[in-house]
């Protein structure tokens, strides 16, 4: 049970944290004031996806959720994905594929893709679109973002096929 009603405790990027909050504070506001600036405010209406974070592995709009609702959950933000020295696979593809224009939509896109890769084993186009549909981009026309993501997903699918082939080899 919580001792102080005005705090919220959750796992943030792998670390257990406790924050002081107000009942009406949104998760996005809390994250940003605590320095997690990679999560963006684009609409505050749950319509653009710039504020996407993972909660227990699922992509959610942090602008719609109250901070209190994160109690006990596992929250991950863009700050947990990649570093200057070692960007994630998708980040690398976005960078190399000229898919980052203004970049404001990109952290949200990456978090939605993380959710997709966590939850699914195969990635048909319509499933991918389903996961990514909540993230608006006004700069790129999506072509290069889509291409970058597809390359990552195709490699994963291939890798999985190969590893399942090699697993089934001995039986053959």
């Amino acid at each position, binding site marked *: 049970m919580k001792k102080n009603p005005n705090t919220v405790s959750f796992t943030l990027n792998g670390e257990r944290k406790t924050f002081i909050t107000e009942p*009406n504070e949104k998760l996005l506001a809390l994250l*940003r*004031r605590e320095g997690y*600036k*990679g*999560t*963006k*405010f*684009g*609409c*505050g*209406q749950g*319509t*653009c996806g*710039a504020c996407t974070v993972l909660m227990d592995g699922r992509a959610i709009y942090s602008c719609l959720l109250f901070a209190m609702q994160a109690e006990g959950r596992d929250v991950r*933000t*863009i*700050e947990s*994905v*990649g*570093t*200057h020295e070692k*960007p994630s696979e998708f*980040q690398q593809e*976005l*960078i*190399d*594929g*000229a*898919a*980052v*224009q*203004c*970049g*404001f*939509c*990109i*952290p949200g896109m*990456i978090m939605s893709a993380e959710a997709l890769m966590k939850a699914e084993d195969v990635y048909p186009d319509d499933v991918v*679109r*389903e996961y*990514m*549909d*909540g*993230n*608006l*981009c*006004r*700069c*790129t*026309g*999506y*072509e*290069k*973002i*889509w291409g970058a993501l597809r390359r990552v997903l195709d490699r994963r699918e291939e890798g999985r096929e190969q590893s399942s082939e090699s697993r089934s080899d001995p039986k053959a």
Partner: protein
Amino acid sequence: MTANPTANFKQVNHSVRKVDAVQLALGKPSYVADFAPRDALVVKMLWSPHPHAKIVSLDVSAAEKMPGVKAVLWHGNVPRIVHCTAGQGFPEPSPYDTFMFDTKVRFVGDRVAAVAAETEEQALAALAKIQVKYELLKPVFSIDEAMADGAPIIHDEPEAHVPIPIPYEPKKNLVAKVGCEAGDFEKGMKEADFTFDDVYETPYAQHCPIEPYVSLAHVDSSGRIFITTSTQVPFHCRRIVAQTLGLPVQKIRVIKPRIGGGFGSKQEILLEDVVALFALRTGRPCLWQFNREENFRTGRTRHPIRVRIRAGIKKDGTITAIGMDCWNNTGAYGGHGLTVVSCCGSKVLPLYRCDNIHFDGKVYYTNLPVGGAYRGFGATQAFFAMESTMDKMAEAIGMDPLKLRQLNHIKSGEGSPIFAALGEGKEGVPMTVGSCALGECITKGAAEIGWDKRTDWRAKTGRYRRGIGMACLMQGSSIPHIDMGGASIKLNEDGSFNLLVGATDLGTGSDTVLAQIAAEELCTATDKMIVYSSDTDMTPFDVGAYASSTTYLSGEAARKAAADAKRQILHTGAEMLNLPEDQCVCKDAHVQSKDGKKSVSYSDISCYSLYSKNQYQIIGTASHITQKSPPPFAAHFAEIEVDTWTGNVKVLKYVSTIDCGTAINPALCEGQTEGGTLNGISYALTEQYLFRNGRMTNASFTDYHIFSMRDVPPIKAIIVPSFEDTGPFGAKSVSEICINGPAPVFGNAIYNATGARLNEFPFTPEKVLNAIRAVKK
């Protein structure tokens, strides 16, 4: 010109990695709001709920006493200085018709009073305590109402005026008028075998950058105001904030960090004066960001324009006359009104050869949202009318519309009387077209879409009918004799360079493009460039990111600055090698003797020049203005499928070709083309402002639909190279032109599918269905 001038380029014409891509992909703090300190006050504005009203009384005393409130601004406690919010050159070709706060409100979303408080909740609670009494005035909701005799006067304040000598009659709601004639239009109409007279309407739209407008200000220890803001025009911003607050320019520093998209919307000073004054009054950092609803209602929009086209054509395809009359609804304030309507003519009429041209543009105030700069800037609106007319003319004379365009489009070495006649607030500049690969754009695009399989609509039957449409386009590259860009570049010990530019990367990739240009000139690698843009204390002046000017204009400034630094590098390198300068060349970040036997690295040259002998800073500086505005060209094609039962239009494929001269960074050029095209597609098919009594009723992404990943049709961007001699390494502009295509392309494709000609868009199922029902075979 050599066979292929681009063959030896090492940095430009290569898709090098965007200089800020890594930090943005990692989500590192980069944008305005990311820099707000924890103790920043939150700013909120009380907006007018009425389209047209006098503020009879306003009482902020209760609000001032609310918890957490640090200051309230309203017309009673701010300077009353008339100005213009449009970030243009000075003096502006737009009326001074705006006050920081006024005693009158002119549209739903106009400023009434602002609060700065510790938290957003406290600011909102305080707004609710502000007492306002309005006297409602009769609103004006259309151009026709605005023009009518005895129409309510929207700007009756005595201070309203234009700072340059151009027509402005606020008593008639007339913001501006402009026109020109070439040849004899009436005679041309008489010579025609067929004549046309049609009226087209284009709708309101918002740019919808995913980062809404946002500004942050604080007072520095020195007492100066530092404004970090999401702007396309940092230098104009500094000037206009100084003017609005009655402060010297010296007192203000404007910093532009990374910008989350602008597309023209942020060529406007909408928040900076307020955060600056709050910072001064409270001594605290102040952050103001629009929410999405505010971004729609109060943010700038695309001017809705009515375009009447009269045209005449002979049976052989000679266009004997083109007349274009435009009525531009600029909403409650007049910024960009004149220049947008001028571009309806100047960016469209030169495309086709015609001896007899008439152009007339008028701009009116209404009590609706305010128009501003939006990618395409008038050309978008007028090309819908022009390119629909081209298809109608082709049909009348029984010619393939593609052929009619091939027959008439402007080519290298040709001019147009329009170039000289129409400028921005003054006459234009005579010009002949240098590079033009439009012919190749047309053939390549036609092959890609399968133009050959296009058939007449009368042969089509069944519920789903396919159609193919096309349009040709042009734009400009910078505003000649008006725009100026500056750059400076200095060498560091390790052979890296600081490239400081006033040019404003708003997400387009211009920092990268300018770095490539400088690196090419300096014979070094792009990743040796540390680019800094733009900061009024630190970087040279630049007019900012608009008018498709950055690559062409600021790019040439960067090239010249690099050439200046290169001269110094060569001088010191030669000194170190003990050779005359003319025996040395720069190559691969070294100065070497012509025979290649002796060489010294830029890094060693820098160390020598900084620490060893005859010390000085190797630093190049240059400015650039342009003599012409070379048009990029494009041919767009689409195949669509119309559901004749529902009126739904499905885009099967879209082809967007572009001649932007040398593509400095081909991948980024493709990105501009794809993004601009999709924005145009979304505008043509779904985007619109819905109003009730002047109030926009669909101010969210739920109700104002912009395309998401699920909606995207296959878009094929094709870059067709040309070489513009006056541009840096042959480059012209790329960013704006592509948004102009989709509306006329779809209009023509819908006609080709169904025989229904729509003179207004968005092509919603309802409109398309009604038009189909009206078709008689």
